[in-house]
């Protein structure tokens, strides 16, 4: 850290210091980037369809492995979390779910970090975990 005291990517990515909302912020970034890269790969993967059955099957073979299935389960989890948390953010960023502004009284408890918001984050993480397990059960025929 130089004299500008900018924390940089390390500070931005450090989810530990400020509670679950900061963890959700970090997860939203990671899952967003992950989904974008998966999407680009998925478009490339499906384009093999145009080269006929043999090309499609050989591309499919790459993903029909244990690692491929685990990767796909991760994508399912990322997708569910990003959707759930994204809806929470859209509602919150429109200014809903905080109640009214009021005169602050000590000890200060910020309305923006209320239980409803925290619960939505936990539900998003929980749903993502459930979706991943379901995805794994489908892919591994459990």
């Amino acid at each position: 850290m130089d004299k500008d005291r900018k924390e940089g990517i390390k500070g931005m990515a450090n989810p530990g210091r400020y509670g679950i909302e900061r963890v959700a912020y970090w997860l939203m970034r990671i899952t967003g980037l992950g989904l974008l890269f998966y999407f680009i790969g998925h478009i490339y993967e499906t384009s093999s369809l145009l080269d006929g059955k043999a090309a499609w099957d050989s591309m499919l073979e790459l993903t029909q492995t244990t690692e491929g299935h685990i990767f796909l389960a991760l994508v399912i989890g990322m997708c569910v979390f990003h959707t759930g948390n994204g809806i929470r953010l859209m509602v919150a960023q429109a200014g809903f779910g905080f109640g009214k502004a009021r005169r602050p009284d000590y000890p200060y408890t910020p309305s923006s970090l209320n239980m409803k918001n925290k619960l939505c984050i936990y539900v998003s993480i929980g749903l993502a975990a459930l979706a991943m397990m379901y995805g794994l059960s489908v892919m591994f025929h459990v």
Partner: protein
Amino acid sequence: MSNIIRESHIMKIHYLTALVAVGFVIIHIMIRFTHGSFANSLEFESVIANYKSIPYAIVLEAMLILISVHGFNGLRIILLELKQGNAYENAVTYGCLAAMIALIAYGSRTIIMASMGMVEA
């Protein structure tokens, strides 16, 4: 870019594309389950049959556009926050726009050709 379109308009597009894309992704996944099993749904013939259904091809095209717009705008936002400066910010904005257009064009090619049956035997 901010001279052409206000950031609030870009973000409204960001939110809207996310909401609509979620609906289409649900349809896309549900279609996988109409083929019996997950593995069967990925058979070459099943996938080609999907593409030849015009309504489904439209869903795929819409999804391609919506997710590309949302995804590359998200990437633009992350990159703009990492570093600042006019040249860098213009490069990020127009780079993301170009990548988005390229991906949409590449994906559309697959959808159009597959739905028209222009697939190698």
